[in-house]
């Protein structure tokens, strides 16, 4: 299951949004080492998707775009196919975030509003089964 979501700005090298979804709080001391590991990759990776094993239980999927990167942290038991489905959610979040984020004109209100819609996207994706799973559930 997805544990948390973090958006990094490559310009400032810091997390702009770090929100807990599952059991692990990205702002907790227990996660700080993992957060540093993620930051290293997320702020340096130019473009693309990178999977980073954090420890025996956690894996981070980092999607880098120009200027920003979106990271989801999962339990390692997550299936590869499900990880790739989350990739499309990360892509959508990245595209939308780039529209509200301007490194030269940082607007905290816009960022916190975006956090709400990002959580909505994630919750929807969690709640709804993938089309393949729905087909298997109803017909196949």
């Amino acid at each position: 299951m997805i544990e948390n979501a973090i958006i990094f700005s490559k310009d400032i090298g810091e997390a702009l949004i770090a929100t807990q979804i599952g059991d692990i709080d990205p702002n907790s001391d227990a996660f700080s080492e993992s957060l540093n590991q993620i930051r290293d990759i997320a702020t340096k990776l130019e473009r693309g998707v990178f999977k980073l094993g954090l420890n025996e239980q956690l894996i981070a999927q980092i999607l880098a775009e120009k200027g920003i990167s979106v990271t989801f942290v999962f339990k390692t038991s997550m299936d590869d196919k499900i990880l790739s489905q989350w990739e499309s959610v990360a892509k959508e979040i990245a595209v939308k975030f780039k529209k509200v984020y301007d490194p030269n004109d940082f607007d905290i209100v816009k960022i916190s509003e975006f956090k709400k819609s990002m959580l909505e996207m994630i919750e929807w994706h969690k709640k709804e089964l993938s089309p393949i799973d729905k087909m298997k559930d109803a017909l196949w």
Partner: protein
Amino acid sequence: MADIPQNPKLGSIIIVGFVIVAVFTVVIMLFAKYLSREKLPALTLTITFLFWGLSGIAVFLGFILHYINMPDINTLIPAGEIQYSRYGINLGYLFSAASNMFMVLFISQIFSQTPMFRRTKKTIPLVNAILNGITIGLIINTLSLSLKTVADGADITEVYNPQYPIAQTIYHLILTLFSFTLLLALSYKERKDASLRWERTGFTFIILYGFSGIMIYVMFVLDLIFPLILPDIFGLGYTIFNYSGWVFAILMCTFAYLGYAMPKRLRNLLKEPEVN
């Protein structure tokens, strides 16, 4: 002034009969899936095909009654008497529009996880239902106008002779194109993401089902257009396009059976051998 329809050809009637058998085979298979699993998308898809089957029955009955009353292809049912095939075709389009409504609802249920349906929730199936409702309203209006008599001021050729104007047929084609293209696009994307061969094949059949579904209505529109622009070659109706439309309907049902019902034997055949 309305025209008098051509008499249906026996070949056309027989092929519609085959289509009905094919559609109801799919309806029974899908309903069995619903009964065993009680999942809403299975029921929605069953209703989609049920309406399509009713569409086929309406056309079939219209053709049969027309044929019984006037089996000679060269002699038309006189003006002022009931033009059965026209009632059948109009009711066929009415049920087809109802089928379209449920098809988009089914798409919204299966592909609910996609950003499009997350953002719009049930707006797309609702708007689609309203637009198809317009088709149904237009057809009901056409049918009620055909009940006007000469005493009510109707032309004798319009009495018991509901038309199906090209504009209305094209409007229905556009809505059908929308629903099948939506299914095609989403299934194509899902097919790319599927990791197992049998899942990919399932979506391939659904894509082929969507393509056949579009081709049915394209053929029916061509069956209307070509006799108008090239009457010397295509005669007055029931052209090769009409037959082709119904052949695509049989193909659509075959692909629907393979893609939606997916027989166990086929799935087992497509399953990759397990790696030890």
